[in-house]
């Protein structure tokens, strides 16, 4: 059973992660995590100190839990640049600072780094408003490149084709083609979600364009992710060519190294050290945007765009049967994640909200609890409280 600890500042509550019901638990590891939460209040997604909160919280957990594997995500610079237009020097400083924060964490903790950027951002060139379709267009707050088209009429398809001719849509892919395309490379890939709620067509935007549909944010983005077919990696552990090799790289080195896997969102090659390298971020025309598919790819070693398919009609899921109320749209704990079957100790800390506890399968996670950039507090999840480290065994 996994336990969620919610910290709303000066006040905490404990819940069973799956059912959301209140749950008392006074295990020493749970109490330790509660204390770390109460010492580290999240300053907010747009606050300059948001990334330092990640480092500080992780270091507090490391002091008390001594994990071999640490997974971190630094996201403040992505949130800020997505929504606001900064002068180039301010923007660059933000990206250099997050890299400094990552290396400072490595210097203090002594962990061996695997630092991965989700790739750079580009200014929004234009939005394609698909609100008026006869069918239904569905995109999400954080996606720019992908949009699901449900029940399109012939007129809708003509409109999409015209956007293609205008150079705003790159391609339109049917559901069957999309599934076949991903399965061609990974025949054993399971689709856990309801295929009936996947869109009939996937519309793929040209770089710089985004969709405006149901599900997209009230706040117009200023910058959106580039088409990052390759993303930067820095690690002394050896070169990889593909994001799917991260899992093996980390797991195969854990016997001799304490490893910190650090994701820096919205950061491209320019801000990485010279001795970093690029690795592939998706098959063919598909590249992961920063978000669930990206995290799951490196955590599971497989591309899984169907974990939460773009354009999915999640609002048509049967709400009465959905579990994990504190886990956003996730309806089950993903399989084969990085630390799920790892016998050593592991933690994750990040300012990707309601996300970290599902993506890495670590023993303990702490993440901010924010919605639409509003700071609600923090959440810790203790998936596993009974592991013993080398010191504990003695």
């Amino acid at each position: 059973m996994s336990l969620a600890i919610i910290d709303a500042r000066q006040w905490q509550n404990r819940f069973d992660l799956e059912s959301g019901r209140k749950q008392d638990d006074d295990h020493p590891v749970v109490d330790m995590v509660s204390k770390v939460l109460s010492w580290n209040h999240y300053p907010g997604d747009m606050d300059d100190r948001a990334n330092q909160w990640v480092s500080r919280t992780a270091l507090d957990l490391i002091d008390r839990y001594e994990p071999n594997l640490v997974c971190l995500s630094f996201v403040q610079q992505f949130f800020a640049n997505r929504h606001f237009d900064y002068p180039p020097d301010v923007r660059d400083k933000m990206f250099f600072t997050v890299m400094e924060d990552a290396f400072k964490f490595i210097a203090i903790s002594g962990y061996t780094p695997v630092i991965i950027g989700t790739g750079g951002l580009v200014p929004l060139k234009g939005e394609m408003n698909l609100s008026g379709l006869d069918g239904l267009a569905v995109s999400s707050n954080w996606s720019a490149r992908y949009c699901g088209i449900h029940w399109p009429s012939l007129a809708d398809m003509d409109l999409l084709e015209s956007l293609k001719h205008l150079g705003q849509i790159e391609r339109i892919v049917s559901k069957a083609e999309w599934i076949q395309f991903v399965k061609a490379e990974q025949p054993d890939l399971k689709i856990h979600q309801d295929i009936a709620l996947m869109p009939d067509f996937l519309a793929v935007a040209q770089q710089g364009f985004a969709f405006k549909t149901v599900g997209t944010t009230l706040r117009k983005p200023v910058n959106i992710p580039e088409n990052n077919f390759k993303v930067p990696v820095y690690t002394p552990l050896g070169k990889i060519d593909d994001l799917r090799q991260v899992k093996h790289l980390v797991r195969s080195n854990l016997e001799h190294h304490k490893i910190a896997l650090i994701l820096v969102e919205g950061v491209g090659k320019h801000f990485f050290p010279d001795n970093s390298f690029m690795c592939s971020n998706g098959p063919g025309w598909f590249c992961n945007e920063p978000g669930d598919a990206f995290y799951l790819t490196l955590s599971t070693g497989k591309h899984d765009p169907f974990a939460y398919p773009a354009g999915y009609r999640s609002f048509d899921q049967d709400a009465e049967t959905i579990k994990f109320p504190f886990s956003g749209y996730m309806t089950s704990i993903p399989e084969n994640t990085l630390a799920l079957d790892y016998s050593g100790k592991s933690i994750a800390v990040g300012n990707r909200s309601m996300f970290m506890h599902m993506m890495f399968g670590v023993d303990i996670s702490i993440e901010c609890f924010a919605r639409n950039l509003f700071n609600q507090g923090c959440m810790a999840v203790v998936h596993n409280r009974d592991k013993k480290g080398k010191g504990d065994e003695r």
Partner: protein
Amino acid sequence: MKCNFCEHRCDLTKGKSFCGMYRDEGGSAVEVYPDRWCTYSASRVESVPFYHAWPGSRSMIIGTAGCNFRCKYCSNAFIACRNPADVQDVMVEFPAEKLVAMAKKLGCHNIIFNVNEPAVSLPSLMRVKEYAEKEDIPMGCLTNGYTTEESTLMLADIFSFVHVGLKGFTNKFYREYVGIHNIDPILRNIYTLSQHCHVEIASPVIENVNDHELVDIAEFICDIDPDIPWHVFRLLPEHDMKEFKYPNIERINQVLEASRKFLPYIYFHNFVGSNWVNTLCPECGAVVIKRFSLGCSGDRLDEFLAPGNICSNCGTQIAMLGTKVAWNEKRKKEGV
């Protein structure tokens, strides 16, 4: 020529209204941006939050731009407190008929206006109501209640369930934190609305600012109708109040305990994991509706334990507009 939609009663011959949404045309107040919406999305009715209207139902959330208040803690300031002319690039244009058709496409049981103040878009909303009524789609809204007597009746005509923000209980609070001088029209309108439609009330609590007014507010609500649900919101420090501290949960709840004796449906939330979001039977205290609190705009139904709105334990009627609606009820009716 004065605008008669809210109590600012702006002189439109001098330009647009305070909210930036009305102008003078031939002696009438007309909308500057009719049929333009900042959002349309499917959400849970509890997330608005309505706790005693159509529990469990799927709502299409809509909003426009502009507001007649300038609350220092506004969570939607980026759309509500800006000049509407400056945010038109984020709006989508839907004539009323198409907006209602979208609610059907999204499988929604009802439509709720909740991003900004509905008084700034009443003619558009009146048109939506005409089509929604034909499709048997009830409408609800959040309002600050600062409407004229005439437009309050328009609100009551359009919306069958209304959530009024009663943000404090003194002119001083409204002057300093909201930007208006007189609370009386709001108190008047709460009474009027309660006579015509289902009303819930929300009050944000700011420690050491308006927490001493909580008992007065509870008594005011009780005098109108003790069955009115009251949502006390812990302040989420946003906008101009980012540096304010988060109110102490235990202390505020202790203050509310006394009022629960005479006002049975008091909820304390707007923070993740609240213990005070369940509905208790006013007679026997049994839990009749269980909810999860996922913080601001995130609450959801867990279990509805009062079939027919009757407490299973003692048979007491629970105050409710409509009754539990399955999330996928509309889809099932359509055979989807």
